[in-house]
């Protein structure tokens, strides 16, 4: 009996230690106690979206676009390969992902998923201002995605119940984005109720901080119209006559919305930056950390030519770039190549004097004292006016007068971010080349210049050499798109197999392959 008693006692101890009934299901062992999982206000996400914008749009996406269009030159390490149009799916992976959401570890957040969440919370709260702003961002983000990658998931994207979204035709995406912008504008107009407060009360507006809700509604309406004009230009080449199914008269539409767009440099959309280490301009941080790119010869040559023709002064040259010891400006050829064979009068890339080059100037150059607070322009008055100029020139019924007016507007009271340069010193006829070259200068470091080049083939660029350091341009066109991200290709069977250096539906006509010797107009 004593033995049995001891056995029972032992077993009782064993079972008695079985723990609490919720030992395996208590809240702190099943849900992360450190992270919120429910949001009732749009503010935190909207702040995140505005802060996630610069790494995406001043980061590698912008470097690709501006290297391909030779505003800058990749002259060391990976950027040499990118100058050769060698972006790989693994290179674009996090950037493609960031258009929609976040990726593990690296680039993250603020994409379509969060924009939809902002809209959903705004609908619940009855806040039309937040709803409209989020739609504007949606068009801005997905418009760039479609431009850089072509067909992209959109209608089925950012939906956790559909893990393999279909890729929508690029032109359809643009069409849908126009509808989103129309919706945004229409939502703004009637919104005046007590719940339609947007980001004004929670300090969430970084871009147009300090404006009232009426002011925000007004300015985002203008941004929406400028974006509409920009996105119509994205499809303009495909909308030319004789292209069945293409949207008709995109130039006409763009022209229509320009007057409703951003009407003053004061309303320019500038990404927020300040001088704090983590609020700094991404280009500045890039220069500090990597500096594998340098000023591109093409941009500097275009600017010098305008100065030489006395239709421009060198204020912007001096703002953008440093001069060499002789006071000259000299950029790098693609891949940092030197000794490229060039036609007479076109700088050949050897430096002026030899081996001396311009650098980025203080606005983004930390080595020259940049505080990193330069607010990079996203969409501006100047862009809107230059869209107007091009559209006027190219629309169904060309309007040379309006084209000249818009071009002149853009060259008056010149702005770049918060920097001002006054009026251009001389008249410039509103030719397509002049309009696009002015835009090429005004939209320094803006990914939009790639779309302009693909549409107009201006400025006249010779492709990068076939190999790093080569002396002659390659014989194939400048790449027209980026490859889809590695993860998307791996996980989404709907991802189309495309030539990553090929062209998208909105860009049916490849630009001619120019060289430095015989091309007319000159290959800059």
């Amino acid at each position: 009996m004593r033995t049995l008693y001891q056995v029972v006692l032992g077993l009782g101890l064993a079972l008695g230690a079985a723990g609490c009934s919720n030992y395996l299901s208590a809240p702190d062992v099943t849900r992360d106690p450190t992270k919120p999982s429910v949001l009732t206000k749009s503010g935190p996400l909207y702040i995140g979206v505005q802060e996630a914008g610069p790494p995406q749009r001043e980061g590698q996406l912008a470097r690709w676009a501006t290297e391909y269009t030779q505003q800058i030159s990749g002259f060391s390490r990976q950027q040499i390969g990118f100058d050769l149009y060698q972006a790989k799916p693994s290179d674009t992976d996090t950037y493609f992902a960031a258009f929609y959401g976040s990726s593990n570890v690296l680039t993250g957040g603020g994409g379509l998923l969060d924009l939809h969440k902002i809209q959903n919370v705004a609908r619940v709260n009855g806040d039309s201002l937040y709803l409209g702003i989020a739609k504007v961002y949606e068009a801005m983000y997905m418009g760039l995605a479609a431009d850089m990658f072509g067909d992209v998931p959109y209608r089925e994207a950012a939906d956790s119940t559909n893990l393999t979204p279909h890729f929508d035709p690029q032109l359809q995406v643009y069409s849908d984005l126009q509808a989103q912008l129309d919706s945004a504008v229409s939502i703004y107009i009637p919104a005046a109720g007590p719940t339609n407060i947007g980001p004004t009360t929670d300090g969430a507006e970084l871009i147009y901080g300090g404006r009232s809700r009426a002011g925000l509604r007004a300015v985002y309406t203008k941004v929406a119209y400028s974006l509409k004009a920009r996105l119509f230009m994205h499809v303009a080449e495909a909308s030319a006559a004789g292209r069945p199914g293409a949207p008709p008269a995109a130039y006409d539409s763009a022209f229509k919305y320009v007057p409703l767009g951003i009407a003053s440099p004061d309303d320019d959309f500038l990404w927020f930056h300040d001088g704090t280490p983590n609020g700094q301009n991404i280009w500045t941080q890039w220069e500090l950390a990597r500096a594998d790119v340098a000023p591109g010869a093409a941009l500097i040559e275009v600017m010098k030519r305008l100065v030489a023709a006395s239709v421009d002064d060198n204020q912007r040259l001096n703002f953008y770039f440093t001069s060499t010891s002789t006071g000259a400006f000299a950029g790098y050829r693609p891949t940092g190549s030197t000794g490229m064979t060039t036609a007479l009068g076109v700088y050949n890339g050897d430096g002026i004097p030899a081996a001396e080059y311009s650098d980025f100037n203080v606005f983004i150059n930390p080595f020259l004292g940049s505080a990193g607070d330069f607010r990079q322009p996203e969409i501006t008055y100047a862009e809107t006016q230059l869209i107007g100029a091009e559209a006027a020139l190219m629309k169904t019924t060309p309007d040379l007068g309006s084209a000249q007016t818009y071009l002149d507007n853009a060259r008056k009271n010149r702005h770049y971010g918060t920097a001002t340069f006054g009026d251009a010193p001389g008249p410039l006829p509103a030719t397509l080349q002049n309009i696009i070259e002015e835009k090429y200068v005004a939209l320094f470091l803006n990914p939009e210049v790639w779309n302009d080049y693909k549409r107009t083939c201006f400025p006249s660029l010779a492709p990068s050499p076939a190999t790093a350091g080569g002396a002659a341009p390659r014989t194939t066109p400048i790449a027209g798109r980026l490859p889809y991200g590695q993860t998307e290709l791996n996980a989404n069977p709907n991802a189309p197999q495309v030539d990553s250096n090929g062209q998208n539906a909105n860009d049916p006509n490849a630009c001619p392959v120019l060289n430095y010797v015989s091309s007319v107009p000159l290959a800059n």
Partner: protein
Amino acid sequence: MIPALRRFLVGVAAAALLPAGLAAQQPAVITGRVTNAAGAPLSNAQVTVQQLGIGSTTRGDGSYTLLVPAARIPSGPVTVTARLIGYKVGSSEVTLTGGSATADFALADNPLQLGEVVVTGAGTTSEVEKLGTVRNAVDSTAIVNSQEQNFVNSLAAKAPNVTVYSSSGDPGASSYIQIRGLTTIQAGDGQPLFVVDGVPLGNTTDYSNLAQLGLNGGNTFPPNRLLDLNPDDIANVEVLKGASSGAIYGSRAGQGVVLITTKKGRAGQTRYSLRSSWSTEQHTQLPALQQEFGLGTGGVSPSCVPGPNSPAPDPTHLNCRVGFGSAGSWGPAVAAGTPTYDHASDIFQSGYTTDDNLSVSGGSDRTEYFLSGGYNYNRGIVVGDNNHYRRISVRANGSQRIADNLKIGANIAYSSGSGGFVQSRNSTAGLLLGSWRTTPTFNNLPYLDPTYGLQRSYRFPNPGPGSEQVSRSYDNPFFTANANPTTSDVARTFGGISAEWAATSWLKFAENLGYDYSNDERFESWAWSNSNGAPPSGVIGVGGVNAGYIRNTQVDNNLTATLNYTASPTFKGTITVGQNLNSQTAQSRQTLGAGLITPTPFNLANTIITDVPNYDFYQKIHLEAYFAQATADIADQLYLTAAVRNDGASTFGATSRHNWFPKGSAAWVFKKEGTGAITYGKLRVAYGQSGTQPPPYLITNSYVAQTINDGGWGPASTTAIAGVGGLLSSFNLATTNLGPERVKEFEAGFDLGLLNDKADLSVTHYRANSSDVILQIPVATSTGYFNVAANAASLQNRGWEVTLNLRPVTTKDFAWDVGLQWARNRGVTTSLAPGLQFYQFPLSGGGNGAGLAVGGVAQVGQPIGAYRGTDFVRCGRGLTSDEGTSVDAACGSAAPGTLYIGPSGYPELDLNNTYIIGDPNPDWTGSLRTNFRIGKLSIGGLLDVRAGGIAYNGTKGALQHFGVAQITADTRNAAPVAFGSGYYPINEDPTNPSHAVAGPGVGLPVPLDESWWTGDASVFNGVDAAFLEPGHFVKLREVSLGYTLDQPWVARSLGFSSIELRVAGRNLTSWNDYTGVDPETSLLGAVSPVRGLNYFNNPQSRSWTFTLTMNR
């Protein structure tokens, strides 16, 4: 009062009174000597009189003394027993009277350790011959003699298919251990569970203190936490290799279990042991760097880019910097008489280690104790004061028999670790990245400008006023080594209390309550002018401080009841039931201060901004398990074991909260004793299941405050700017129901004693299928998410393990033994989530710039962890050449995979596709161990062999780009060569005779010049396949020479029973075909299952150690 408690208290009182009870008169003294069969004395043998509970251990000369109090002298004879691992038990009957008695023992060899009891986990034990699975044990001598600061390293080459990868030779650097291949693909996993004295001991490697600064998670080589365990405290290690042996640990044993037993006291006189050693260390192999060409590009020295206060592009001017375009050594040939510098090695010096351990042990018939203290200090091989690791450890193990049937015990260890670390790997403020890219004509010393006291580097050679807080682009390595102290201070307590209660003669309860707590205070600092470009870049140039702690706690309670039954003389066994409760908590808080107000001190209060989202991590995991095991011994030759465990884990989905893990084994000893060709034979077969738990907290979508990076390039934003804080959606899509991964393993083999025990042979075959492997499945990023956790893959590992031990000579004065181990593992991915082409292995700690487009992957039909990446254009892949022509057409009849040579004479890059390009897993591993004993002299050696497998040498691709690799000097001005015949760009197999090429450029000589090395042959722009190299090696892991002084004069004159002098070498040489640092290197340390990656990893170290051991 219940009887058990009453007996407990009586026992405690009795224990307290024990010394008083020892007053005896006319005791009996038993003396004697224990030798082996050849007459050689055996020390540390345990001599006991079981019926009296009296024991002692033998001294160095084999002698022992037992004292029996007069009051306890029995009337009849007693049995004296002598035991020592490796020898059969000896016993002798002695009749005691007051006075002396003698009992000598000559123990027969027992190389198969038959009859010895081994722990088999969760409170269960077994005799060796009854094991149905292969046994791999490592004893204390082998561990101590390996001279490793890190216990994990001491397991290298000690057991077949137990593979150890040391991440670098840095003090405290983590090591990764893998058993029988990779059975899981979770981040930081693939490593076994470690259990010390019945209590799980955490072995995490935590990069998280660097998460805010280091690129993708950190740029030092932090320790794996088993570093806190003093190897000198370990008595024995049992490796439970697979599911068939580890199933008793259920969902924590999927990658095997390492059972560690620490040293205990033994009844007998108090013994003292002092071991003191001193090692000198040097770096092992380094890449070959050229010293023939200087800075520049195109053969021309660069002008410089004007910096602050420096308007002129004159390189001699203050604050001029060398731009990236000219940062390579592609300048002019070094003029005769110009000094050059060997930057491959000039940052290294001789390091040293001191290791001192003192232990005291002893006990009585009721009390046993073991006390130890250890001090280990490793001064690393990098110059400066920031490369060291020190461990102070204290241990107290004790037990008290407070009643005849109740024994309680406690073992408590405290370890204090303190390390200094140097930034390394992929960081522009990293040691070797800065050192090895430096042009050979630039002297990195002094690293501070003599006039201004500011950092000078080859890209910023003349610092002056205005550059105090300006990045140097690449830091001077001597600056890195001296100026940015990074430290870790660990306090860890682990151990437990235990009780054994024999409730009846046939029923025993065992309770083990364990605790493991560690607090790691980490501190990272960045001086002014540092070049750390990692995100967020708040500290680049302006300096900063990151401070915080990492705290891990584990409480484990294991309760078992074991019933012994005897159904008949030929049918008996045990039944064990048990319960395990476990709670693990991990917590970390860190604060980053960016911008130092003044250059020093490195203190958060001396920083400007702390607005990076603070790192505040917490997680808790609970486990509740029940298990039962039954054994049956049939006719003393057939041994059956069956067990089952039910695990409930908080990390399992709500609908699968509990899971079963069964196992069963059979061992048939068909020959037990005898002489002749086969003296012992056992066949064994086993099957079992074990598992791996999912990570916690995967069931909800959450929002995070985080840094937002521009890819991996360095620039970043955060969700807190301008005083407002934002959130973003997490990249993890919530999952609804996760179960454990499950490993089902079948194992069979045999153990033979041969040639009158002059040899033994063990052969094992296993086949392990992992199912429901948990993947963070990549989802289409267009969903807005990046991955979702799911049980979504299957893996298979199968292989062979052979152990052959030979003892050709075992005489008194000369003995020679040889041990051979050979193992092969073939791992393959057998299934993957539908629609997924491949699964990229998690790179915990980040890819860290390794450069591989994809990395290690699971892909159906491919080796687990095979590298997937970009390749050159090859025949048979349906590709279009750069010229727009069909590659396959140009290849003609060339075999698929043949390298295509374009019309330019160069191969072309296939950047839009990725392929399986190599397998880092070895074809086989093996070791050869031998030991000679000549009288008191012993000589030993251990060769470690890893055959096959490739490694990724990203360092090479960067050194080529910068024109500092020796090959770039050899080729840049040499005559053009034709690819295939004169040069082949892939070095994965130097014995590959084919080097086949095809295409229009075959035979066309082309220069291997700057364009080639900076372009297609550069790690930045080339293809991954170009940087694969053979990962095989033969390494002289250990060599030693020892002499033991245990003659009687030693005790008489010096007071010690024995003194051992030992000289040992570790990692003395490695034969391999790898052009970087040792191919054993690992970029990701012990945090990722991806092996063999190298991007400016620090080298391994070799050492000579001198040891003096004194026993009393």
